Structures are given as structure tokens and as C-alpha cells.
């Protein structure tokens, strides 16, 4: 028995030696390990302090290949904000950010259903992206310098320009931030909201106590129980969460904007191709609205369009898709299967929904907003 054990132990060690000495190993999204002979294992300097890292090896093309091999995109989304990321009564994910994931799947696979949605909380979303558990984070995430650099991610074109606001009960008589002096404010942890709240209150000399919770549900549950005098998050979040409170008409959103909150999807550092694909998916949706392309008329436009730009977008001319590593009808698929920016916006945040938010800054640059897509050339 002892001999069997020792022979086994020696075999185990030998196999580990062989495995470790193999060419560069990498962990990929979804936890599968691939032996990739293209990427060379880089000797990392011993973890003694903060020596500047050598330039990261080129990861161009890795994510697209992984996603295509897997057959679906893994998308990190919110499950607690109606209108942006929410689970409806039949158990399907819906929302503005969710539709972007579907557009990406339409671009890569020609099928918007090839997405696996992972609901992530505010505190785990960046770790999930960094570790490769999700391919893209589409979860009303604010673009900041720290997140662009230290958190190892790249922000794709902003899909929703927002600002931070404050919601109070109507009968509290609070109309400005100064009325909250000495009060308690409910806020979600791990967000720019938390930091902005601290900054703004300190700048105006208002003393307050934060009540901090891990997710949106707990935050708003505590607020409706009266644990705090006000709750703060992005104004879009306030509108959508107020819609699902038991008494929406008793709560008012103050006319104060505490910060800029450009919300958009985020991808990992290191793969420029995947970044470009995500970027131009957003631009496709904006440009489609600009040129009047929608899911209803895109088939006609494909055959009858005369504008060269439209022809290039729809893949009739040129090879815009191939340059991205996709097929030339990627934009056509996006517009046909998911819609242009206006359609997506109206479906989730339009006047017919419970979570109506006027477009404001989120209109085309020709309509008084700041949405502007670069040329498809």
C-alpha cells in the first residue's frame, strides 16, 4: 500500500513538471485553459513593490477568438435597475444595457440570443471583468480616470450621459442639499456615487452620515423603511427605482445634479480588436439613427440606398466588417435584429415605459444632444 502511494506521488510530480514546463498558459474567459503557442510566457519581475510592468504582450484577437469558439458572449449586466438591466416577469433580461449586449452578439454571431447574462453587483463587476469571467461589462458604469487605468479596463463610447441626483420623500420638505444637514443618506457601495457624495457634501460643508449597502435592492429597501432621509445614485437609476417603489408619487427627485456620469460599456485592457468591435457596435446604432435606418426599413434601404455612407454601413460597398474581424453585414444585423439607438432607447426608456427619461443630452448632435458617430470609412 505504501509502495503504491509513493509510486503515485512520483507520477503526480512528474506530470506537474511536464505541465508547468509547457509553453505559455493563459486563463481565458469562462475559466477554460488553452495552450496558446502564439503568446510567449513573460517573466514577471518578483512582486517586490511597484516596479513598472513591462508593456503587456499584444492580446489582439484573443477575446474574439474565445467568444467565437465558445459560441456566445458572456455579458456582465445589472439585474436590479429597471430600464437598464432588469429581469422581467418571464425571467428574461431586459434593458438599455442588455440591448447593447444583444447588439454585440448580433454583430459577432448574427444572432442576438447568443449571450449569457451574468448579473454582477457594483463591488464585483470590475473583478469579474479583470479575471475574464465576463467578456464585456454593460452595467451603467461611469467612465472615470481610475477605472480607465488602474482597474484594467477600457471604456467604449458612452451610451448614456447621466448625472448624479438625490431623491427624498415628498413630505420631508427637503428642497436643496443643505436641508440634509445632519441627516442620513443611503448610498450603494463601490460606486462613483459614494465618492461624489462625499466630495459634494464636503465642498458645501454639509454634515451627513452615510448608510452604505451592497446592492441597489438593499439601498432602496432601507430608504423606503425610513432608515435614511435621502437616497442618491445616477438620476436614471433614481427614476427607474422610483417606478418600482410602493408609492412612487410620494417621492421627489431634487433638481440638483451632483456630478457628470457618462455611462457606457467597458472591456478589458489588452485586446484592441475587441475594443474596436464594441466601440463600432455603439457607433453603428448612433449612425443608424442619424441616417434614418431602423429595423423596419433597413431591408429596403439595403437595396435602394444611394448615400455611399449608408451603403458602406450596410455592407453593400466596402469591407468595414472585415477590418474589424467580423462579417461585412455586422451593422445590418445589429440594425435589423436590435434596432438603432432611438429604437433601443424608446423600447427601454421611452415615453411608453414606466421608466421614462427625456433624452436630453442623449439625442443626436443635430437634435441638441451630444451623440456623434465618426464616419464609416
Amino acid at each position: 500500500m505504501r509502495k503504491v502511494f509513493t509510486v503515485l506521488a512520483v507520477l503526480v510530480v512528474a506530470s506537474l513538471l511536464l505541465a508547468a514546463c509547457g509553453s505559455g498558459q493563459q486563463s481565458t474567459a469562462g475559466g477554460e485553459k488553452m495552450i496558446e503557442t502564439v503568446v510567449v510566457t513573460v517573466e514577471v519581475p518578483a512582486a517586490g513593490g511597484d516596479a513598472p510592468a513591462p508593456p503587456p504582450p499584444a492580446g489582439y484577437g484573443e477575446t474574439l477568438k474565445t467568444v467565437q469558439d465558445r459560441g456566445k458572449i458572456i455579458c456582465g449586466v445589472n439585474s436590479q435597475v429597471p430600464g437598464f438591466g432588469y429581469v422581467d416577469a418571464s425571467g428574461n433580461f431586459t434593458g438599455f444595457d442588455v440591448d447593447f449586449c444583444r447588439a454585440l452578439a448580433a454583430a459577432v454571431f448574427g444572432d442576438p440570443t447568443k449571450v449569457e447574462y451574468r448579473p454582477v453587483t457594483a463591488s464585483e463587476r470590475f473583478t469579474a471583468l479583470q479575471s475574464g469571467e465576463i467578456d464585456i461589462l454593460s452595467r451603467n458604469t461611469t467612465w472615470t480616470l481610475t477605472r480607465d487605468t488602474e482597474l484594467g479596463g477600457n471604456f467604449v463610447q458612452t451610451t448614456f450621459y447621466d448625472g448624479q441626483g438625490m431623491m427624498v420623500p415628498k413630505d420631508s420638505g427637503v428642497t436643496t442639499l443643505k436641508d440634509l444637514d445632519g441627516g442620513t443618506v443611503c448610498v450603494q457601495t463601490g460606486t462613483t456615487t459614494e465618492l461624489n457624495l462625499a466630495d459634494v457634501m464636503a465642498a458645501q460643508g454639509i454634515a451627513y452620515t452615510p448608510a452604505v449597502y451592497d446592492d441597489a435592492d438593499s439601498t432602496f429597501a432601507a430608504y423606503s423603511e425610513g432608515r435614511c432621509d435621502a437616497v442618491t445614485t445616477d438620476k436614471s437609476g433614481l427614476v427607474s427605482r422610483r417606478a418600482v417603489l410602493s408609492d412612487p408619487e410620494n417621492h421627489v427627485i431634487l433638481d440638483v445634479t451632483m456630478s457628470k456620469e457618462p455611462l457606457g460599456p467597458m472591456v478589458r485592457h489588452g485586446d484592441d480588436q475587441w475594443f474596436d468591435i464594441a466601440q463600432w457596435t455603439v457607433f453603428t446604432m448612433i449612425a443608424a439613427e442619424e441616417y434614418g435606418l431602423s429595423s423596419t426599413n433597413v431591408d429596403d434601404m439595403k437595396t435602394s440606398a444611394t448615400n455611399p455612407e449608408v451603403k458602406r454601413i450596410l455592407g453593400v460597398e466596402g469591407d468595414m466588417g472585415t477590418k474589424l474581424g467580423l462579417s461585412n453585414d455586422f451593422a445590418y444585423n445589429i440594425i435589423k435584429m436590435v434596432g438603432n439607438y432611438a429604437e433601443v432607447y424608446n423600447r427601454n426608456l421611452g415615453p411608453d415605459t414606466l421608466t421614462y427619461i427625456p433624452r436630453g443630452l442623449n439625442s443626436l448632435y443635430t437634435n441638441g444632444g451630444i451623440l456623434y458617430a465618426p464616419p464609416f470609412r
Partner: protein
Amino acid sequence: MNRETTTGTSVPFYRDERILQVLGQIAFVLGVFLFGYFIFHNMLVGLQKQGMTLGVSFLKGTSGFDIGETLVEYSRNATYLRAYLVGLLNTLLLSALGIVFATVFGVILGVARLSTNLLINRLAAFYLEVIRNLSLLVFLIFWYLGVFLKLPRVKQAIIWPGSIFLTNRGVGIPWGVPSGTFPTYRWILFLGLILTVGLGLVLNARGKRTGRPPMTLLWMLVTFFAVAVVGWLILPESPLMLELPYVKGLNLAGGKILSPEFMALLSGLVLYTAAFIGEVVRAGIQSVSRGQIEAARALGLNGFQTMRLVVFPQALRVIIPPLTSQYLNLTKNSSLAVAVGFPDVFYVSNTIINQSGRAVEMITLVMLTYLTFSLVTSFFMNWYNQKIKLVER
């Protein structure tokens, strides 16, 4: 070197059991190290591909966020390290108070469970059986959402005699505020402590010499108490001024305001762990054989004396090891503070991870913190266990 077999021929080294054993152990250790190196290297490569490195200098960065409950000075301009310290102290406070209250309540429950009074016995049994079958997380959330947040708003606070305010913004209790003479009083207490320890040593020595051990602990407590009281009275101004809570605007102020998160956590943890401690105590007391109790009665000791002099010292030897586990459980269960929003060390480190992106370093730090707590607690308990162990021939 080769071992001699019974027939006189020697065994070659590749079949020699002793050598194979050693080789096997070396191989196993090597295997574990290689595996550890492999996964660590994997992680470094993955991080590096995104341009991230490992290091702890980020802890000097500005935190930028506020924390609702702090035991030390803290502002949004403080460093991440300071924020972590705040969380750490919160956890320590919660664990220390939790351990004390849970032990007291647990011992009461354990003894009640063995009472001859049928009502007390059944009540204790019911409590123990029900609470031990609950999930702690559900229990905590019940205390938070179902009890402490359902208290009335500040304007309609429930006021108990003794000026205790119950609201959904917290429980306000009267508290002592240090006055000008407080530093002097601290010195008096310090001197009293030295006196008490000295007295303890003297009494112990006398006990060893005469063979009749005096009630050392009792004398020490009496001395310290006497010094404290006398010191308080002789000072011109009372060192602690009583401050009562009152309603101020939207919140409570004055005295000590215990947040609903803290109260919910403390209540949940204490009541939950006390049930387990109760069972441990009951098992310990029942482990003492009936013969001991009968012998004690035969000697003329009454019920209370029997418990104090015969049963409990022997029961303690059985109680201490599982009690240590319960203490460690309580300390680690305090990390469920994330569910109710109390800023303990795990919660604060979550925020730091999210704001700084340094998941690996922070999780390692948190693991080391909890490991240190556990090791210190069990070290102390094991020392105590050694002291009271039966010395057998």
C-alpha cells in the same frame, strides 16, 4: 545501510520502506509547491496582460469615501489604510462584545436547560432547538429589516425609563462624556491596577506558603473597585459627565447612538452563538459523573457549592475546546455585516477593492486579518485550557 531481513539478505534501497516513505513525502511537498507556483504564475501573467501589477503601495492612496461608523478619526481624505483600520476596529468591537454577551447568555441557557423547573427547562430547550436550526444570514436580516428598521421614526421615538430612545435611526442610550478631570482619573485607575496585580501576587504567594488558597480573584476585584470609587469621589469634578440622548432635527444626538446595523448584528450574533454555547455548556456539565455530585452532597456541600467547587471546574475541561470554536465562529460570522451595511473589515475592503481595483492584495490582507484574530483567540484559549487540565500520572 540496507535493512537486514529475517533470512539475512539485505533489501535494495528502491524497495526499502523507510527510504520510500521519505521520498514519497518529499515528492508530495514538491508537488504542492509546484502547483502553488503554477497558479500564482498564471495569475501574474493574466494581470500583466491588462497592465496591472501587485503591490501594497496603493494603500497610501486617498480613499475618497465616507464611513458611517468609526471608532477613530476618519475622513474622506484619509488613506485606504486608515479606512481599513476603521473596519478592523469595528470588527474587533463587534467580536469582543459579541463574545462576552454570548458567553454570559450561553451559560445561562446551558444551566437552564438542566434545571429541574419544568418551565425553564422546556423554554430553554425550545430556544436552543429553534435557533440552532436557523440560517445566520436570514436571522441577521430579520433582526435588521424586521426589528430595528421597524422602530418608529425619530419624531415619534419610543422612550424607555432611563432615557433610552428607540428609533429606526438607532438606539440612543445615556453615556459618559470625559470631562477635564478624566486624564487624572485614568492615572488613578492605572495605579489601582498595579495595586491589584501586586495584591494578587502577594495573596498567591501566601496561599502557596500556607497551603490554604485565599479567594484571590475576589480580593483583587474588591480592591480595584474600591480604588475606582474612592478615586471618583475625591476628584473635584466628576471625570465622566452623563449625557442623555435627545432628538435633533432629523436624527438623534447626544449620549451614545447605536446604529440599527450594529444593534441588529450584535443581537443576531449573540443570540445565535449563545444557543451553540448553551449546548456546549450543557454537554460539559452532563459530562461530570453523577458520582461526583453524590460525593459532594455526602460531604455536606449545598447545591450552589457543588456547582462551583466540584461540577464546574471539571465541566470546564470539556467546555473549553468547543467554546474556542464558537468564539472563532462568532468572529468570522461578523463578516456577514455586508448584508446589513455595517462597515466591518470585510465590507470596507470590498469598497477598497472596488475603488482601487486591487482585489488580490486586499483579499489576502483580509484573510490574514481573520487568521490573526483566530490564532490569537485560540492561543489564549489553549493557554487557559492547559492551565486547568487534569494532571494525570
